[in-house]
């Protein structure tokens, strides 16, 4: 089974859960005065779930045949691309999300830009540090001072 049909199967699962919630669990908690209304909060989701399940089944059953065409990236040969770099960068983004508050903006952003370039294979150490530092400070200044959005600059234990 090709990837697009696997995805359709997963989406079908999501739609079934969504539909179950809309059809069977939402209306019970509705107050009596709301039940007099011609439309309930579950009405629109009910219609959506039916349509979405039909669309999933159409893809799954393969009624609409598609010619396999040259995709930009062939997922069947994903390992031939730079998958390692992509996964590492995603991991770096997650680490950034977790560290942004505790470690402060200045430290985590500099580290993010430095390590991002490192993962992609850059080895000009001085240039990497300088670019990362300058960019971090400029962005922090723009966001904090010009846009007026608070970003904690330093790690918590330094009183940032």
């Amino acid at each position: 089974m090709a990837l697009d049909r696997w995805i359709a199967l997963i989406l079908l699962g999501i739609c079934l859960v969504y539909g179950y919630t809309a059809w069977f669990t939402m209306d019970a908690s509705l107050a009596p005065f709301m039940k007099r209304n011609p439309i309930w909060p579950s009405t629109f989701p009910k219609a959506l779930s039916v349509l979405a399940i039909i669309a999933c089944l159409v893809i799954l059953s393969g009624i609409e045949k598609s010619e396999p065409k040259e995709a930009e990236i062939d997922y069947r040969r994903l390992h031939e691309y730079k998958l390692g770099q992509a996964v590492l960068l995603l991991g770096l983004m997650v680490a950034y999300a977790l560290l942004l508050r505790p470690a402060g903006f200045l430290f985590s952003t500099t580290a993010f830009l430095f390590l991002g370039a490192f993962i992609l294979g850059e080895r000009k150490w001085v240039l990497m540090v300088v670019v990362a530092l300058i960019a971090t400070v400029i962005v922090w200044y723009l966001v904090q001072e010009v846009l007026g959005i608070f970003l904690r600059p330093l790690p918590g234990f330094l009183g940032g």
Partner: protein
Amino acid sequence: MLEGLLIGLQTAMSFQNLAMVIAGCLIGTFIGMLPGLGPMSIIAIMIPIAISMGDPSAALILLAGVYYGAIFGGSTSSILLNAPGVAGTVASSFDGYPMARQGKAGKALTIAAVCSFAGGTIGAVLLMVFAPMLSSVALLFHSAEYFALMVVGLSAIAAFAGTGQVAKAMIMTLLGLIMATVGEGALFNLPRFTAGIMDLQSGFGFITLAMAMFALPEALFLVLKPKVAGSAEDEIKDLRISRAEARSIAPVVGRQSVQGFFIGVLPGAGATIASFLGYAVERNLATKEEQAEFGKGSIKGLAAPETANNAACTGSFVPLLTLGIPGSGTTAILLGALIALNVSPGPRLMIDEPQIFWAVIMSMFIGNLVLLILNLPLIPYIAKVLSIPRNFLIPFILFFTLMGAYIGQNNATELLILVGFGVCATALKFADYPLAPLLIGFILGGILENNFARSMQLYDGVSFIWERPMTLGLLVIAAILILLPSYRARIAKRKAEGVADGD
């Protein structure tokens, strides 16, 4: 209209808004030039900045400037590197790149700039004429018609936007609508589908979703598969075009600006379709000798898609500004930004806040002029951006994606949601599921449900569907749009089988 023009001119000519036009065009050109980053990603990244400015006219002017700047920049990399930065400029590389190979890069860039200018300007004139007309018709619409009109728009997008697979585009649209129902609902403000998670109470963040759908997958694709591009080392010189050349492309420009504009107005068909269709039409109209030139550096073959894609960009603002229904992913993002700024585009926009409407139109003229006079002489220098090493570029793109989502919500959980959705979106992109319908569905979901709920309440049931002929008509059109492509595919298949049997 004259009064409106003057209001618009007054707003657009303020120092701040002029600066916004220039900044938007320059940023758009810079980033649009980078292969792989489309206008949707750029606008998604720019949205937090635009929203925090607080002034809707300035924000829309900035984002519109980024939009056509990106299309302009995309054609530069198409011509110089044969690596289109934007899908709408792929057709420009057919003849633009051969011209650059023949050492006529300067001339090709000039033709691209002049044609973009002409297409954008004529498009803006047409917008000025048609938008008020459409909007006065739209004032007669009832919420039932709005509901039906949005269904038509969404099905048109599902029918045209995908790569010919209507079911996939439809499931993505429905998924967008489903995601829009998460959070506090239209009725009684009851929280729905939150699974008890507090962070979902206010629904998914629109900026987060826009970043996750467009910017992140595009950046990941750049990591996975570094684009092999030619080099732009050659000096760009000789920017002049001769009088004879100008005369030969003038009718092309005239035809393609009108055709491109109307294609842009249609939901689902945007700059990409307009440019390919423009190229094909001009090729058929050309004389025999000229036809042989197409694909080998014909100036007409470059002028046609360049004019058409810019005119289509302008045309796509018509449904956004008059009906409040975006016809493309890019205008859907613009709609989201406007809603965040407490402006609801639609027929009332021209009455309630005419300065926004007219200022955007005036800024289009100014923006096109800026692109022509500022970018054209600077292009040889701006093209240097193409030599920024990707090792530095990609971490910055990822960082701006994260920052955009963070600034919007000031919530680090949002970043995890962003990465999660980004991975899902990349998988969907692998499997050839179109992503734009999902975002359009998500943005329209709330408005669609509101209008549906209002008509249900007014008619005490679903009877509005058959009691209002216009609603019924629109819904029938929507059904035809969805069913026709598969029906035609089946007929074609049966015919093909018949041929095979006869053999």
